[in-house]
C-alpha cells in the first residue's frame, strides 16, 4: 500500500534546494466546476533562504503552503505536479504523490517541515497545557523520554523569549497574550529542528511592535538552525524587510518571481507594479493612491487566459484574454508571466 518514494542519494551542498515545487495544481471540486486554487505553480527554496509568497486573499498562497504539508482542506486535491522534498538523510521524496495520512508524510510533517499559522489561538488546544502541547511533537519525533522532552520544551520556550518557561509550561493558552501565543507556536515549530519552516501570515493578527518582535525571532531562529523559510503574507513591507526571493501570486498562478530587489525596484508584471503603487508609504505625500479597479474573480470556469486581464489597464485585446502567457525568465532569475514582455504562451492541458 505504500508508494515507494523516489529516492535519489546525494549530499547537499549549502546552496542546494530543500524543496522544489514543479507545476503544482490543487483544485477544489465544487458543484459549479473545478475551483483552481493553485494552478501550475513552480518554485524552489534553498537552504537558509527566506522565500516570500505574496498575494491578496484568495490568490492561493495558503493552499500552496498547506499542500506542501499535504494539509489542503477537502475537497482540495493535487491534480498535477510534484513537490520534491530533499530529506534530511539526503533522499528525495515527492510529497505530492504520498498518502496524505500515511507514515511518510507524518514523519516529515511537524518534524522536518513545520508550520506556523496566522491565528495562534485557534491553532492551540484550549484544554491542554502549553507544556503538554509542546512535548507532544517532541515525543513523536525526537525522543521517547518524557524527561528529555520536558527539557527540550522548556529550552524552546526560553529560546523564543518567554519569561519563566518552567512555570509557563503548566499554563493554558488563554493565559497568554496574542504575541506570546505566537511565540509558543514558534517554539513548537522549532522544537524538532525543522529544515523548512512555513510561516503563513504569522504576524497579521498582531500589533506592529509585537510583529517586530516576532519577525526578529524568526530571523534569529533561521540563522541559528539554518532553516529555509517560506514566508506567506499580503504585506509588502514585511517581504521587503526579511525575504531574499519573492513570488507574486494572482488567481492561483505565480505572475512574477525574482529577487526581492528585482520585485521592488524593477517590477515587470502589471499586477506587481499596481500592487506596489496601491500600498501607502510613509512620506509619500500622495493625495490619492493608485488603485486596481475591480475585484479578483472567482477561479471557477475562467477561460484559459491571463487571470489579471479583466483588471489590467495594459491589456492587449485579443491576446491577453485568449491565451495564457508562459512564465518566462526575462532576466537572470527574474520570471514574468505577461504578454507585454514576451509572447510565449502556455498551452492548455
Amino acid at each position: 500500500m505504500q508508494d515507494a518514494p523516489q529516492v535519489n542519494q546525494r549530499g547537499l551542498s549549502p546552496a542546494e534546494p530543500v524543496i522544489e515545487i514543479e507545476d503544482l495544481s490543487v483544485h477544489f471540486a465544487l458543484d459549479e466546476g473545478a475551483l483552481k486554487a493553485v494552478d501550475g505553480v513552480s518554485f524552489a527554496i534553498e537552504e537558509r533562504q527566506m522565500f516570500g509568497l505574496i498575494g491578496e486573499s484568495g490568490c492561493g498562497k495558503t493552499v500552496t503552503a498547506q499542500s506542501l504539508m499535504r494539509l489542503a482542506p477537502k475537497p482540495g486535491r493535487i491534480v498535477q505536479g510534484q513537490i520534491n522534498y530533499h530529506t534530511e538523510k539526503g533522499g528525495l521524496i515527492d510529497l505530492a504523490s504520498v498518502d496524505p495520512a500515511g507514515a511518510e508524510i507524518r514523519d516529515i510533517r511537524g518534524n522536518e517541515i513545520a508550520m506556523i499559522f496566522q491565528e495562534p489561538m485557534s491553532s492551540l488546544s484550549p484544554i491542554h497545557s502549553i507544556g503538554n502541547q509542546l512535548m507532544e511533537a517532541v515525543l513523536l519525533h525526537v525522543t521517547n523520554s518524557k524527561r528529555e522532552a520536558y527539557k527540550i520544551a522548556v529550552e524552546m520556550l526560553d529560546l523564543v523569549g518567554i519569561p519563566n518557561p518552567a512555570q509557563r509550561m503548566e499554563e493554558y493558552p488563554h493565559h497568554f497574550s496574542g504575541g506570546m501565543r505566537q511565540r509558543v507556536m514558534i517554539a513548537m515549530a522549532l522544537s524538532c529542528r525543522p529544515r523548512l519552516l512555513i510561516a503563513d501570515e504569522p504576524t497579521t493578527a498582531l500589533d506592529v511592535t509585537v510583529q517586530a518582535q516576532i519577525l526578529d525571532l524568526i530571523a534569529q531562529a533561521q540563522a541559528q538552525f539554518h532553516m529555509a523559510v517560506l514566508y506567506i503574507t499580503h504585506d509588502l513591507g514585511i517581504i521587503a524587510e526579511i525575504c531574499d526571493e519573492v513570488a507574486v501570486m494572482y488567481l492561483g498562478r505565480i505572475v512574477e518571481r525574482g529577487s526581492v530587489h528585482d520585485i521592488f525596484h524593477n517590477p515587470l508584471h502589471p499586477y506587481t507594479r499596481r500592487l506596489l503603487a496601491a500600498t501607502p508609504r510613509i512620506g509619500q505625500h500622495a493625495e490619492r493612491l493608485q488603485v486596481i479597479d475591480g475585484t479578483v474573480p472567482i477561479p471557477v470556469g475562467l477561460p484559459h487566459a491571463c487571470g489579471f486581464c479583466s483588471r489590467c489597464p495594459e491589456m492587449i485585446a485579443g491576446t491577453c484574454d485568449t491565451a495564457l502567457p508562459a512564465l518566462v525568465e526575462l532576466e537572470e532569475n527574474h520570471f514574468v508571466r505577461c504578454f507585454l514582455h514576451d509572447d510565449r504562451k502556455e498551452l492548455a492541458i
Partner: protein
Amino acid sequence: MTAPPVLKVEGLKKYFPVEKGFLRRVVGQVKAVDDVSLTIGAGETLGLVGESGSGKTTIGRCILRALDPTAGSIQFHIDDEKTVDMATISKREMRELRRYANMIFQDPYYSLDPRWTILDIVGEPLRLSKLAEGAELEDRVASLMDVVGLEAKHLRRYPHAFSGGQRQRIGVARALATNPRLIIADEPVSALDVSTQAQILNLLNDLQSEFGLSYLFIAHDLSVVEHISDRVAVMYVGKLVEVAPKDQLFFFPKHPYTEALLSAVPTPDPDVEKKRIILPGEIANPADPPSGCYFHPRCQYAQDRCREEEPALREIVPGQWASCHFAEELELVGAPQ
C-alpha cells in the same frame, strides 16, 4: 479667527470596574481611557493610533455614546448656534444628534445584517432620524449608492452578494446617509486587501473634500494613518502620549513610544536600512499600570524620574504635544524619508 473645532474632547475618562466573586464586589478599575483631550477641526482628519487594548476604540465609542463616559466633556459643534456636550446629554437627545455623527466599522462582514437589503441598511439612519421615507428614501439611498461608487440597481440585494470592498462601501454609504459632520472610522480598511484598501481610502478622501467631513480615523496601520490624516494622536495604555501634525509626528517624533512604533513599521523597500527598535516585554495592563510614566518599563531612555513621576502631555514645539519628561533633550529618529 478660524472656525471652531467640530469636536472638542476634554478630560475624557472611561473606567470599567473589575468585579470579583459572587457578590460582584468591585476590586479595581480598568482605566481604558484616562484623561484624554483632543480636538478635530472642520474638514480635518485626526488619526488615532495605538496597539490593541490601548483604548482607541473606546474613545470612538464614548464620543458616539455607545458607551457612557466616566468623566469629561465632549463638545460637539453642530452649527453656529448650537454646541452640545455629548457626554452629559440624555439618550433621547442623543438619538436626535446621531444624524450629525456616524460610524464606519472594521469588519464589513459582521457590521451588515445579512437579512436586510441594502435599501434597508443604508436607509435605516434616514428612517430613524425621520429625514425621509417611502419613495424619497429610496431616491436618497440610490444617490448615496452612486456617491460611494455602487450601482443603484442593486438596492434590493442582500450583503452576501457583495465583496468585502463593496460591503465597506455600503458601510460608508450608511454613515453618510444623514449628512453628518463627523465620521468615526474604526479600522475601516484593516480587513481589506491592499488594492481594495486603496479604493476605500480614496473614496474617504473624495467624500471629505466634497462634503467637508471631519474624520476620527482609528487604525493600527501607521502607513494608512499617515496617508489619510492631517494630525495624528498616539495612545498608550489609555492615555495620549503624543499629538502632532502628521509630518512632525512621523519624521520628528517627540515621544519614545512613537519612535518605537515608527521603527517597527515595515518599509516596502528592500534597500532602506533601518534599525528596528524591539520593545522588551508587553503593553502594560490598564488594570494595574506601572508607576510614573506607563511606558518606562519598555523605554530605552528611562531614568529614575520616569519611574516616579507621571509626565504631563505638554506642547514641546508649536502644535506638537508629547508626554515625556525628556522630550526636549532626546534626539529621536522618525520614519525613513
